[in-house]
């Protein structure tokens, strides 16, 4: 029996060479939020922003990542551009395309240069309770183990004769019960794993009110500069007459 064994596009690699890699994640988060406000601006100002943004991405060595992101939605962009142009106007077509371009790439700066652990630490410093920051870290850390568990469950059930036929839209409603042979073990294994981690964390003082973090983030001059420039640019574009 053959079926497609294709993995989705995953872009988890950190852009280690980017000069933004060592900036404080809070500064990069602020930059991304500023950029996401710009999407509401009229066409002329949007074009100015996008020009500056592209130069910034080239400097930050993130331009290829930016292009990869656009490549994923190129057909949607082309479709909307053509429909808007043919039915309404060229100006609207350009405006919609640029806005979608900005909106899909605003967080690239943060995601491509920050590890999940660094983001969790930044969110914690911004006031997120420790246990939720712990949760974000734990989720990432558990991912590879849970991937292996899905595979192990699938193998174990296939060896019992489940999924011996290919399902399609006609048969899936009658065979949805077979999928329970995957979901039940997956839920059970994840719950058991959660329990072991709960015991392990509790036995090492999790939820202690005395907790003091060892690692610190330092918001340096360059982070302030990045933050001020981002805010200045967005405010100028919004209020400039």
């Amino acid at each position, binding site marked *: 029996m053959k079926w497609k064994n294709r993995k989705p596009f*995953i872009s988890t690699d950190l852009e280690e060479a980017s000069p933004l890699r060592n900036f404080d994640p809070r500064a990069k988060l602020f930059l991304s939020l500023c950029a996401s406000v710009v*999407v509401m601006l009229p066409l002329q100002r949007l074009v100015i922003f996008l020009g500056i943004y592209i130069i910034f991405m080239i400097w930050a060595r993130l331009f290829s990542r930016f292009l990869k992101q656009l490549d994923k939605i190129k057909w949607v962009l082309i479709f909307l551009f053509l429909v808007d142009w043919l039915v309404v106007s060229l100006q609207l077509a350009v405006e*919609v395309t640029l806005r979608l371009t900005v909106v899909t790439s605003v967080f690239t700066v943060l995601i491509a240069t920050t590890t999940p652990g660094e983001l969790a630490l930044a969110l914690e410093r911004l006031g997120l309770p420790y246990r939720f920051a712990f*949760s974000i870290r734990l*989720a990432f850390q558990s991912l590879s183990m849970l991937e292996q568990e*899905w595979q192990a469950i699938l193998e174990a059930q296939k060896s019992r004769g489940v999924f011996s036929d290919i399902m399609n839209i006609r048969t899936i409603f009658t065979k949805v*019960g077979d999928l329970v042979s995957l979901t039940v073990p997956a839920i059970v294994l*994840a719950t058991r794993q959660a329990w072991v981690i709960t015991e392990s964390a509790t036995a090492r003082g999790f939820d202690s009110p005395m907790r003091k973090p060892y690692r610190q983030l330092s918001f340096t001059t360059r982070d302030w500069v990045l933050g001020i420039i981002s805010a200045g640019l967005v405010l100028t574009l919004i209020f400039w007459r």
Partner: protein
Amino acid sequence: MKKKYFSTFQLIVLTLFSALIVAAKIALRLPIQLPGHSGLFWMAIMIVATRVVPKKGAASFVGIVSGIMATFMGLGDFGSLNTLISYSAIGIGVDLALLLLGNPENLVVATLVGIIGHFAKFLVKWAFGAISGAPLGFVALGLARSIISYLVFGALGGLLGGLTLLALKKAGFFAYLAEKK
């Protein structure tokens, strides 16, 4: 000491369910000829999460954490912000639907919850289209194919969630769970 809203176990189990959703999207390849079928597990796990941790906000928590993960993994086509908000919207949609409809162990309720949850994701895509300034009719046209798949996958995912809950109950899972604080 002030009691936390989610106990340590509830927090960790919801976290692992969030990771389980993303792991399914990345790892699980089934002999099913339907694009995006891993979405079925997404909805099913979210529905199960609301019974394993029977507190308001459980699905929203799973939605947000899996959304942050999916954002970092580069999943989704419309960029990080869209991915984060879409995943979160499903969680919030499921929580709201359950508030209105009740127990998802009823298969009809589970199916409806699945549809509503998935429809929340569709609304996010619609909203992104609207923000970009595109006429809503065209956005809808562009997403017409998606609407059907959203409804089908939402319904199937919800149904799978309900069936999973019933199977877990019969297999003794909730008796095991009842020993844990």
